[in-house]
């Protein structure tokens, strides 16, 4: 059996109104019937005449309209009182509680009743018997002032006129040229500003509380910028109508604010979906193994390659941003070129194969180890392979090879694509540089080579290009052989690369920025 819900006060008025309305309608019908009887009995009109019916309908409509309007006016105070009671009873309602200060309530006397309902509730909830505060001895205020000055908290009090009547020592309050004290804050956090909250309170609240976090000082203010958490309390009619308790949290929040770097945030947002796309593609790759046709495998491969390239682009943007701010650092350690390539071999082969290029790799196992940051170098490789794919045609061959050259290992990415004239080559590593021809034919941003050069040079190597039109291009970069720089690395005497060799056991790191 269904449980009957507890009757709500707000439903009383609706019910009462419906019953009253029904009574009015029934009475109107009765009146019209009486009128009809009178007309017929007095033989003024009989029911055969159209005028008889017209008169009856007119009487019915006019009577109904007048009585329904009158009903609304008569029971309005009841509506207001019921709504106020419903509000103080804590019932949920879409309607705002009635404001006793509305003109018509003052006129018809409902105001007194509404005020009483709200005042009784306030006393009941707070235990205050009066909105007036007890007088405070001056020494107490002084003590409190001193005590507050010792803390990072402050208090600001407003009177019912909205003037600041008290502000403790560290309160974010400034005095305008006219001598008026005002808050020196910009309420840019939270759902509403302090001013709007006050207006809301003045409209229909008796007492109210609100907390804002991370409120900054007004940027136009001359003082040092601070960040506060603020608790506000409103109590209608009290001499201290609004009290703000303000906690200075600059020390806690400021380090975070430094993190609020636009590019870092944009990258964070972009990387979220990339994580999910790459992750689930990998899950598919594993779980659908053996179930896909060759064509479906090719299509899945294209998705994987596109997601990987997207990830490379985001890393490029982040790295360029850090490099330009001189924040880009790398962690050098002893690495085998073969291992570095091997960690991304599958990705590189897929990138080439998906776009119909053949990738051949010639990296001897027995080359000396290099000093490298493997994650950065895989980014360089990805950028160079992507470039070779872009500037060659389908069926083209891309070769990656590594050779020993003095104190360095040289790694080359060779394509047999469209190549470049000499005039283009020397601009190639500039940021955002795109040759006239590539702007027309190939999409790209022009930051891949720029950041690759930055990465290679951070390793102490160089990057160069040899190209001839219609024959293809060869990009070559060099990395120092580990033995030649080992002494420097271990002693930490290498300027940029502080703490280069991470000896922490089980240390795993794949972050792409702020290396070192």
């Amino acid at each position, binding site marked *: 059996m269904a449980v009957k819900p507890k009757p709500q006060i707000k439903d009383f008025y609706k019910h009462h109104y419906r019953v009253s309305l029904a009574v009015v309608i029934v009475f109107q019908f009765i009146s019209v019937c009486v009128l009809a009887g009178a007309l017929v009995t007095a033989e003024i009109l009989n029911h055969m005449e159209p005028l008889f019916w017209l008169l009856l309908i007119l009487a019915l409509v006019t009577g109904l309209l007048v009585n329904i309007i009158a009903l609304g006016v008569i029971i309005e105070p009841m509506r207001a009182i019921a709504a106020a009671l419903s509000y103080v009873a804590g019932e949920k309602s879409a309607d705002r509680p009635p404001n006793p200060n509305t003109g018509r309530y003052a006129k018809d006397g409902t105001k007194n009743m509404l005020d009483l309902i709200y005042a009784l509730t306030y006393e009941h909830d707070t235990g205050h018997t009066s909105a007036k505060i007890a007088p405070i001895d001056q020494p107490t205020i002084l003590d409190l002032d001193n005590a507050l000055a010792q803390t990072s908290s402050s208090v600001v009090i407003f009177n019912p006129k909205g003037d600041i009547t008290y502000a403790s020592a560290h309160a974010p309050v400034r005095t305008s040229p006219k001598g008026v004290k005002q808050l020196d804050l910009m309420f840019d956090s939270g759902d509403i500003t302090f001013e709007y909250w006050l207006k809301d309170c003045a409209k229909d609240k008796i007492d109210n509380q609100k907390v804002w976090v991370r409120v900054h000082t007004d940027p136009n203010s001359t003082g040092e910028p601070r960040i506060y958490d603020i608790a506000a309390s409103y109590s209608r009619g009290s001499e201290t109508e609004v009290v703000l308790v303000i906690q200075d949290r600059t020390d806690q929040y400021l*380090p*975070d604010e*430094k*993190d609020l*770097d636009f590019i*870092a*945030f944009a*990258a*964070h947002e972009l*990387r*979220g979906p*990339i*994580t*999910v796309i*790459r*992750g*689930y*593609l*990998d*899950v598919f790759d*594993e779980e659908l193994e053996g179930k896909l046709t060759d064509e479906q495998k090719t299509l899945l491969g294209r998705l994987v390659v596109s997601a990987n390239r997207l*990830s490379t682009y*985001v890393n490029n943007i*982040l790295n360029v941003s*850090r490099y330009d701010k001189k*924040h880009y*650092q790398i962690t050098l350690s002893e690495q085998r070129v073969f291992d570095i390539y091997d960690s991304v071999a599958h990705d590189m082969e897929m990138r080439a194969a998906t776009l119909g290029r053949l990738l051949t790799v010639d990296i001897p196992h027995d080359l000396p180890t290099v000093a490298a940051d493997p994650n950065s170098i895989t980014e360089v490789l990805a950028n160079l392979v992507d470039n070779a794919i872009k500037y060659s045609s389908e069926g083209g061959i891309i070769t990656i090879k590594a050779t020993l050259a003095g104190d360095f290992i040289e790694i080359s990415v060779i394509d047999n694509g469209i190549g470049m004239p000499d005039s283009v080559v020397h601009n190639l590593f500039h940021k955002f540089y795109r040759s006239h021809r590539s702007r027309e034919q190939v999409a790209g941003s022009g930051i891949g080579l720029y950041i690759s050069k930055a990465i290679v040079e951070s390793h102490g190597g160089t990057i160069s290009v040899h190209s001839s039109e219609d024959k293809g291009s060869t990009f070559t970069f060099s990395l120092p052989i580990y033995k030649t720089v080992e002494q420097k690395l271990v002693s930490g005497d290498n300027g940029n690369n502080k703490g280069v060799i991470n000896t922490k056991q*089980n*240390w*795993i*790191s*794949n*972050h*792409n*920025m*702020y290396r070192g």
Partner: protein
Amino acid sequence: MAIKTILCIEDDRLIGEMYVRSLRKAGYDVDWMISGNDGLVAARNKPYDLILLDVMLPERKGSDILKTLRSGNHDMIPNSKVLVLTNFEQDEESRMAMEHRADGYLIKADITPRKLLGIIEQLAK
């Protein structure tokens, strides 16, 4: 050290679900918290073998959680490994502080569930 129980603190439901699904499939006992405060409470109340910790979390940032759990000489989770898994590039100071207290610091976008399983195996050795 064998890894059996894992606490994943991650607010992005799609990412969290992805990792948690794969970890559970691989036989790990995984609890998943989506807010910083819940994550901290869980980490304090149960000794997990591994905590996967996001940085940008509601209520309490991952860096703060890690600082609370492991600060100075006081390690509340001496038997747990911590892998920071984030897509957010922090400033160097914050990142170094997290790296110092954690057993790994990884960019989520580069870590597929399969890679994560490999890393956890490596961590358990």
